[in-house]
């Protein structure tokens, strides 16, 4: 258990040290971050399968529970492994001019948060880490925060993923309420009962929105291309290899519960399929290398989503394997594109050609990555692509699915050729900087990934037994007979489809300009999702304007309005509850009214009315005293001598205070009311009625248990040494409360003093 906790905690803690260490280490900070990442990777490798509950907010069913199984291990290895390579890559990539302290802090926060997502055993804990990954993604996209595209991309990403996260929180809350627990293991155990509940469908839809936004599925895919404003190491890490796969992680976690749900196949498989087609179709039209990669990531995520949506064990196996492979070849491609960008000063495909002469190693690496993505044999992408095509073929989608899959794969081949062929061959083009090969350090991480790609491609059994097999078992949660992943499956329909996709892609590549022109013609230019987003959030800021309008309607900045809302709502709630619950005022147990008391009450009433009618300052002083002074006498008559004395003193002090301040104030002008007086009168009447009713209700029910009063009366002499019980309560039994009271008085006194002093100082130093 220490390893799992350590793997999550180490990067999170180290993240906060990064800005501090940066002062001493300067450019060497990358090495410190590398050490942290590598240590985390080792901890991840050492983490066994386990379940553990550390109590946290147990009353709400939210605990710090850890659940590590094959599915989490696959992700954890990717997060820590690719994370280590990315940190290594970032050292030469970023150089020493950037604010490295900030960069590595964000990156390590992400690493810890993402490991938290995959290790969480409680869905609420998962949610917390999930949102933390969104926040670190936001910070990293906006790393170059003075750039417009970085601001735009960061805001777009966080709005879409937080929106989805919110939906997901709702889904998790429903799931936890219906299932009776927030623990993953508990939910899995109750899955049959869960599915019987109609509310579970709502939960499923909400959870899917969360997963789709995070994994950039259509129509939420629009944030991912704009997230490319981030430094390339971030794109390689968060926006292709790990964070965008969090949605797939959630899908894998939900699979055992929901894959039999009637909505699962139609929704998940369709969304995945559409995403795959749209992503690959848009990818070929882009000229920016990172944009191509971003949309190809969208497309590949759609492919994996489609596989999990098919709800067969065979498809889940293919999805899991492709998820692993995609992380390797896509991270590699991002790294190579970063090197190209770094060395030539541009990412525009039309400007780049013939780079293989200057950058032979990068060219070879890019070709391995692109070929793997296209599904060329002997590389890992070929294997999982074959399994994908087979799974679609064998699924309920049948021939139609197979045609769509082949078509999308054809586009995939096309953009893979652009990435792996177009920029490297032909005559060298004009680039801003003279191209030259990247440094050795920067080439090491993609080289390691290339080795993994080939190794998995040639010896798939190794990957299967080490990570894929346990991961699939954890997703299925049930024993299933699955074929072993093998290099050669014989002449199958899938092989034919692969050949078609590769051949068709090559054919289209020879006529690339024509194909691109045709594609652009059928792509909508004006009415698309980005335009909708921009209308709502960016150019037109429709949402912001609407929010501002609503806010300004209620938040008028005028005290009266707020008080009307608050007091009116309180009165409505009170009387509404009384009416609904049928509360009656209980029989009153009245004490007799003496003539003096009646007289005093009458004076107080007159004083109150006069106060409201007072037009001069002096009249106000006189009439408020007409309330206060009789009230103190009334206190005396009502057997509260201490109150009477205190009230008299306070009344006198207040009058003195009035006299001191009033010469500086204006006469009481009656400003015309802005809104109708009737509302004010109504609210005042309601509050007055509330006071009367509450008093009468309280009279029937004893608010203070008599034992308390009795205890004070009995022990006042013995424990407090005083006859006056009220005094003993204040200075002895509840002495600390009185100290608080004195503190309030002191603070108020200081505030008064300061306010007056401030004025004098300003007057002395020339009033602004």
């Amino acid at each position: 258990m220490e390893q799992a906790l350590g793997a999550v905690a180490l990067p999170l803690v180290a993240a906060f040290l990064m800005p501090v260490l940066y002062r001493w280490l300067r450019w060497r900070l990358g090495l410190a971050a590398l050490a942290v990442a590598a240590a985390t990777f080792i901890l991840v490798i050492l983490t066994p399968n386990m379940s553990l509950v550390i109590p946290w907010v147990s009353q709400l069913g939210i605990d710090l529970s850890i659940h590590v199984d094959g599915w989490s291990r696959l992700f954890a290895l990717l997060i820590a492994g690719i994370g280590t390579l990315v940190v290594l890559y970032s050292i030469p990539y970023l150089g020493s001019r950037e604010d490295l302290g900030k960069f590595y802090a964000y990156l390590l926060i992400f690493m810890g948060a993402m490991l938290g997502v995959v290790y969480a055993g409680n869905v609420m804990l998962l949610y917390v880490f999930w949102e933390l990954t969104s926040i670190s993604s936001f910070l990293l996209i906006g790393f170059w925060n003075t750039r417009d595209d970085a601001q735009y991309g960061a805001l777009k990403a966080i709005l879409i993923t937080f929106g989805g996260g919110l939906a997901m929180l709702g889904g998790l809350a429903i799931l936890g309420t219906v299932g009776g627990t927030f623990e993953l293991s508990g939910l899995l155990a109750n899955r049959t009962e869960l599915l019987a509940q109609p509310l579970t469908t709502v939960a499923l839809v909400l959870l899917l929105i969360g997963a789709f936004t995070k994994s950039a599925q259509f129509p939420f895919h629009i944030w991912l291309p704009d997230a490319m404003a981030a430094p390339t190491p971030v794109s390689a890490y968060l926006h292709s290899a790990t964070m965008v796969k969090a949605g797939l992680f959630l899908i894998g976690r939900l699979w055992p519960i929901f894959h039999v749900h009637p909505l699962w196949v139609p929704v998940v498989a369709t969304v995945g399929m559409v995403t795959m087609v749209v992503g690959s179709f848009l990818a070929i039209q882009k000229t920016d290398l990172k944009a191509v990669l971003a949309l190809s990531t969208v497309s590949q995520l759609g492919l994996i989503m489609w596989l999990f949506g098919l709800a067969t064990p065979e498809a889940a196996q293919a999805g899991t394997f492709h998820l692993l492979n995609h992380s390797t070849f896509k991270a590699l491609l991002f790294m190579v594109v970063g090197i190209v960008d770094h060395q030539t000063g541009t990412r525009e495909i039309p400007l780049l050609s013939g780079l293989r002469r200057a950058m032979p190693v990068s060219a070879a690496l890019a070709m391995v990555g692109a070929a793997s993505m296209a599904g060329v044999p002997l590389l890992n992408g070929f294997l999982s692509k074959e399994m994908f095509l087979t799974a679609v073929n064998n699924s309920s989608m049948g021939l139609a699915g197979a045609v769509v899959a082949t078509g999308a794969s054809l586009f995939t081949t096309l953009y893979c050729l652009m990435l792996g062929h177009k920029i490297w061959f032909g005559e060298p083009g004009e680039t801003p900087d003279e191209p030259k090969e990247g440094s050795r350090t920067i080439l090491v991480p993609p080289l390691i990934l290339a080795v993994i790609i080939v190794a998995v491609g040639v010896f798939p059994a190794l990957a299967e037994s080490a990570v894929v097999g346990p991961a699939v078992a954890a997703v299925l949660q049930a024993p299933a007979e699955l074929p072993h992943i093998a290099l050669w499956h014989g002449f199958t329909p899938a092989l034919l489809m692969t050949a078609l996709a590769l051949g068709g892609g090559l054919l289209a590549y020879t006529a690339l300009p024509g194909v691109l022109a045709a594609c652009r013609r059928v792509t909508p230019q004006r009415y698309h999702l980005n335009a909708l987003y921009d209308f709502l959030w960016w150019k037109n800021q429709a949402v912001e304007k609407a929010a501002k309008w609503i806010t300004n309607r209620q938040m008028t900045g005028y005290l009266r309005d707020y008080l009307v809302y608050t007091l009116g709502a309180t009165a409505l709630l009170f009387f509404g509850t009384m009416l609904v619950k049928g509360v009656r005022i209980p029989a009153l147990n009245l004490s007799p009214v003496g003539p003096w008391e009646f007289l005093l009450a009458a004076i107080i009433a007159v004083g109150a009315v006069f106060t409201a009618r007072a037009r001069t300052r002096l009249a106000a002083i006189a009439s408020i005293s007409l309330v206060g002074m009789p009230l103190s006498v009334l206190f005396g008559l009502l057997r509260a001598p201490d109150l009477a004395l205190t009230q008299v003193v306070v009344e006198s002090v207040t009058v003195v205070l009035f006299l001191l301040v009033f010469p500086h104030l204006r006469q009481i002008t009656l400003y015309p009311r802005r809104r109708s007086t009737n509302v004010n009168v109504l609210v005042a009447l309601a509050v007055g009625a509330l006071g009367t009713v509450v008093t009468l209700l309280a009279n029937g029910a004893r608010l203070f248990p008599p034992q308390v009063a009795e205890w004070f009366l009995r022990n006042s002499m013995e424990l407090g040494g005083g006859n006056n019980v009220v005094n003993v309560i204040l200075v002895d039994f509840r002495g600390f409360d009185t100290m608080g009271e004195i503190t309030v008085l002191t603070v108020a006194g200081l505030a008064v003093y300061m306010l007056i002093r401030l004025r004098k100082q300003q007057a002395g130093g020339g009033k602004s």
Partner: protein
Amino acid sequence: MELLAALLIGLLLGVGTYLLLERNMIRIVLGTMLITYGTNLMLLTSGRLKTGRAPLLGGSDIQTAAEGGGGIVVDGISYVDPVPQALILTAIVIGLATTAFSFVLAYRTVQEYGTDDLLELRGVEHE
């Protein structure tokens, strides 16, 4: 007596609220004072009124004349509830502190901004 007190409380709170909803700062402070009075009386009434002696132990014979019944009985003598009284005592003092503070605040506001009209003192629109 409780019924009379309840009506008085209603009046004090109602007039206080009415003043609180005004634009003039002095009237608002006066409103808070009336509400304080009303609330204090409400607290006292909630512990029942005149149910016995004032909570002074070892009282003389004079007090006996003012006794009622149904209070907290200790050693055969009925006392009124001392707990609300202790609470109100605190509330009175705090009330004084807030009144003093609001008055000085009103005074300073008039000095700084030259008006005691809350509508005029509104902040800017929300950006």
